[in-house]
């Protein structure tokens, strides 16, 4: 991969991390209504997959979706404004943290019903096939969603019709407080691919280059009309499920062990080793990302709330 592209992926991951840290702070200052589900810790998945996508490719997302939006190229300030419930947000304040969409970059939106985005992604795949373009869809969901009926129905349909969809399972080990081993008799969600006759790949979801490589092959396969792939990225969320979850169901040792595999510090070390980055360049990127996120926060804070009556708009065409 070109140096520029590698640096760009690193920047995207940092953007997500820095953005999520800001959201966490703003929440603490009572500036974020509702709740938040942070993506920190899982950056390599969104960044690694989306680095393979074109602007006209699609993604679908979940309640933990800020990272997907950023990775697909949505604007930080409009994401932040939506999270704060402002009129300038992507959904004019109607969606919030769990429902951000940016159709202009192919981000088809986040649905907060676990697993519900899977058939929608399959539908976008069918649309591509019927329109005879070479776009692809990346459908993000967690391991918890793989226990929903929509997982079975949606992937089966994508498989029988050879639709261009990457089903990207972000296995962060916990569905809210329920550890995977308590609700699944198998270790790998990707093993379920066998049931649909499609490739199933397990990848270290905290290694962005590994994610990139696996997604690259799946995108190639999809663009050639050969059908979907189920990719399971083993990863870990740094924070609890939502803002007020102290995550007491996870042991301190487990959390610390995963923190040593933080996807961003790992990637940075790798880039320094590969001479893609110097300490100086890394610092510049960090500073520029921090400034961009700060600008997004200012934009969001200064933006007006929607007029109350706007609640009645945007229902029907």
């Amino acid at each position, binding site marked *: 991969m070109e140096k520029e592209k590698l640096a760009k992926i690193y920047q995207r991951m940092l953007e997500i991390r820095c953005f999520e840290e800001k959201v966490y702070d703003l929440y603490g200052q009572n500036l974020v209504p509702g709740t938040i589900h942070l993506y920190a810790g899982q950056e390599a998945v969104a960044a690694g997959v989306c680095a393979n996508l074109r602007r006209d490719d699609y993604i679908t997302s979940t309640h933990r979706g800020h990272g997907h939006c950023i990775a697909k190229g949505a604007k930080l300030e409009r994401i932040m404004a939506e999270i704060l419930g402002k009129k300038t947000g992507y959904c004019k304040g109607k969606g919030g943290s769990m429902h951000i969409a940016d*159709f202009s970059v192919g981000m*088809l939106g986040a649905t907060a*019903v676990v697993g*519900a985005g899977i058939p929608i992604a399959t539908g976008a795949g*069918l649309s591509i096939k019927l329109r005879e373009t070479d776009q692809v869809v990346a459908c993000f969901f967690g391991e918890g969603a793989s226990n929903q009926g*929509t997982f079975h*129905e949606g992937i089966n349909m994508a498989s029988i019709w050879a639709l261009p969809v990457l089903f990207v399972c972000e296995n962060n080990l916990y569905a809210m407080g329920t550890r995977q081993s308590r609700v699944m008799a198998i270790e790998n969600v990707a093993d379920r691919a066998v049931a649909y006759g499609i490739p199933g790949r397990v990848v270290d979801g905290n290694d962005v280059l590994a994610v990139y490589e696996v997604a690259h092959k799946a995108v190639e396969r999809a663009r050639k009309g050969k059908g979907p792939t189920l990719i399971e990225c083993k990863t870990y969320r740094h924070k609890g499920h939502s803002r007020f979850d102290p995550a007491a169901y996870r042991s301190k040792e487990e959390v610390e062990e995963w923190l040593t595999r933080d996807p961003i510090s790992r990637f940075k070390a790798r880039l320094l080793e590969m001479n893609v980055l110097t300490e100086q360049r890394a610092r510049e990127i960090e500073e520029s990302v921090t400034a961009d996120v700060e600008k997004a926060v200012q934009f969001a804070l200064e933006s007006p709330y929607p007029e109350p009556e706007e609640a009645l708009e945007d229902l029907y065409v």
Partner: protein
Amino acid sequence: MRKITYRDALREALREEMAKDNNIFIIGEDVGRYWKGAFKVTKGLAEEFGDKRVRDTPISESAIVGVAAGAAITGMRPVAEIMFGDLSTLAMDQIANQAAKLRYMFGGQTSVPMVIRMPFGAGVNIAAHHSQSLEAWFMHTPGLKIAMPSTPYDAKGLLKTAIRDDNPVMFFEHKLLYPIEGPVPEEEYTVPFGVADVKRDGKDVTLVATLYMVHKALAAAERLTKQGVDLEVIDPRTLIPLDKKTLINSVKKTGRVVIVTEDCKTGGASAEIAAIVAEEALDYLDAPIKRVAEPDTPIPFSPPLEQFVLPDEERIIKAVKEIM
């Protein structure tokens, strides 16, 4: 004017619209060349437009609707078929939380131009899982439109409007209506949403009825005419949007209203219509609002049991007489 069946009228609407717009496709269980739809509505369409545009699916109602929604937000205009209205329960999240809400939730960035067709209604002895009328559930979900044609003419005209609409439209047909014949012009026409059809002018009582009940209401009106009661029969044709104006104007004229629907009485479509009349025309009423509906049971199997729970002419006549 030529007469064709309700089933053929629906098929004509699908065929004409599909011929005009390549983005329209049909998706559902056994809608293709092998079975041609459980009620044969899609007969011949796979042969004419290809299996690509008339897609047989696995038995996966949730994915049928979800896939249609995903295709709709990316440029297509799917017409999904759920084999029986009762099975919409399996697709409820995709209908009520996804298709209905995507546009609103995303601040108007997208539209969801799709139709979900399904047969409703009892009267053919297929019991509790194949006979329900569930329109009230969907009336309670903002973002959806609801069409319920009672004649071949309306079936064709409303389905064309539904397919051209940029919003998700729930299109409810009635099993007993598929074989009925009625006049349908050969030339192009559509029936707009939100415009009720006054099936019969009258001055004494307003009868509001939907889907198959329109025919029961008209038959009851015929019999009551002979007894000197002059009924006005109104078919709203679409519940969302609802033509309140025609309804209220009729009630203002007659001062009496009986609402006839095949769904359960409690929280049913008739409850909403009654509430609108009470809110907007109470001062014009000369008698209490009456409702004739299913008495809050599942639909039973055995013919005498099923007939007992279904609204019929006798019950409509009784309700009218109670307020005369």
